């Protein structure tokens, strides 16, 4: 699976998550977001950037509770809550934001 964008082929898994972490850049993120029906604003980038920073440090996507806690620390309680994250990423911060951030698909029992 994969998609072509700006003349380059990007390999993904069955659900559209980038296979190679290093393929990611802002343009590709914008493109994936567009496919998801999301227009990236500064608020959207705050989440994506946090996810990428966290992943590069710990090699794993954060649990939702950690994402919320850290968002609260960095941006205050009005951004550090689950309802806010679902406003930005209606299909769920774990699934949609991770996809846009170019991280592997979060695992777990859904």
């Amino acid at each position, binding site marked *: 699976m994969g998609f072509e964008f700006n003349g380059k082929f990007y390999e993904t898994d069955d659900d559209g998550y980038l296979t190679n972490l290093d393929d990611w850049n802002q343009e590709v993120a914008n493109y994936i977001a567009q496919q998801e029906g999301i227009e990236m604003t500064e608020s959207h980038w705050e989440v994506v950037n946090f996810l990428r920073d966290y992943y590069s440090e710990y090699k794993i996507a954060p649990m*939702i509770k950690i994402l919320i806690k850290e968002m609260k620390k960095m941006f205050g309680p009005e951004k550090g809550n*689950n*309802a806010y994250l679902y406003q930005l990423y209606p299909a*769920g911060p*774990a699934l949609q934001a991770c996809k846009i951030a170019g991280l592997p698909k979060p695992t777990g*029992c*859904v």
Partner: protein
Amino acid sequence: MSDDLKTPLLDELEKGPWPSFVKDLKQMASKKPMVKDLLRQLEKSYRDKRGYWKHGGLVGIMGYGGGVIGRYTALPDEFPGVSHFHTLRVNQPSGWFYTSKALNELMDIWDAHGSGLLNVHGSTGDLVFLGTVTDELEPTFRDLTAKDWDLGGSGSDLRTPSCCVGPARCENACYDTLALTYDLTHKYQDELHRPMFNYKYKIKMSGCPNDCTAAIARSDMGIIGIWKDDIQVDQAAFAEYVDSGMDIQGSVVDKCPTGCISVEGKEIKIDNSNCVKCMHCINTLPKALRVGKERGAAVTIGAKAPIVEGALFGSVMIPFMKMDNFEDMHDLIERIWEFWDEHGKNRERIGECVERIGLATFIEGIGLDPVPQMVKQPRDNPYIFYEEYYEEES
């Protein structure tokens, strides 16, 4: 795909006097082609002795993280009808009271958008819609919400709170289970729909220790009705039981687990200080005995089925609390969640968390005082020194 349906192994399940899900599925198969493939796949599973469902999947409703469980067949070429066969959990009304109009609405919605197969009810408490394709999820949800229904919980969230029929139909109810379920469902909408916990968190409410929702075994937090004073006795009604020739000694007195019942002539005597609220005498002599007057609920924590760790029963955290208003309950729930959030690991249930860190740390963390009801078994090691001992020494 040929139209004939040969299911010799499943057909065996239609034999005998009991109801059969195979009969139900076959009935639906004549209307819904996807159910035909469901039967074919199941037949193959029975023959090969293995399941052909892939685990999990990334499906959901916009704005919600829970309520839909993705199901895909591992053999989409062989069984295209069940290439998607997602489950939706519909939040049930408290105590499972439906009008026939409401049930008709639900069936119409599911007939239009899915397989038409229902599970009423699943062990989660929800009414379950079994089997639809990804493209039908949003339309199903739209039709459900248009009729004021909502989805239930799934994944690492608050699962749909569930209760027994409570005071609506049962004289043993020690508190209003229906009202508390309704209250918690509304108060914790965010936690129900948007997973953010370490793992699932189930709250079940039973009106008395008969525990018709099996809260003691199947909920992270069981809220079980209980009374504090004496069992109410109607001696005249008891005498009638005696006169009817009932074997009181064999079926009541001998069965009392603490032996706190005795009979003198036609009078029953109960040593309430030794009663462990097993409900047996009340269930056996419903006309003569009733639960006490000072009623409330006990709270148990930590029951679960064996998935990551082994199965656990709930342990009593609060032996008795008044249920006149639910604010204390909200407060307790939120303190537990805060603690679990802070100390729990990914995919660790609250019961496992308490086992790992120890009950003493847990109750201190949520601000509960130790009480004798928390003791699992008496201490058999005499060499334990308390802090007070060291203070005296120094």
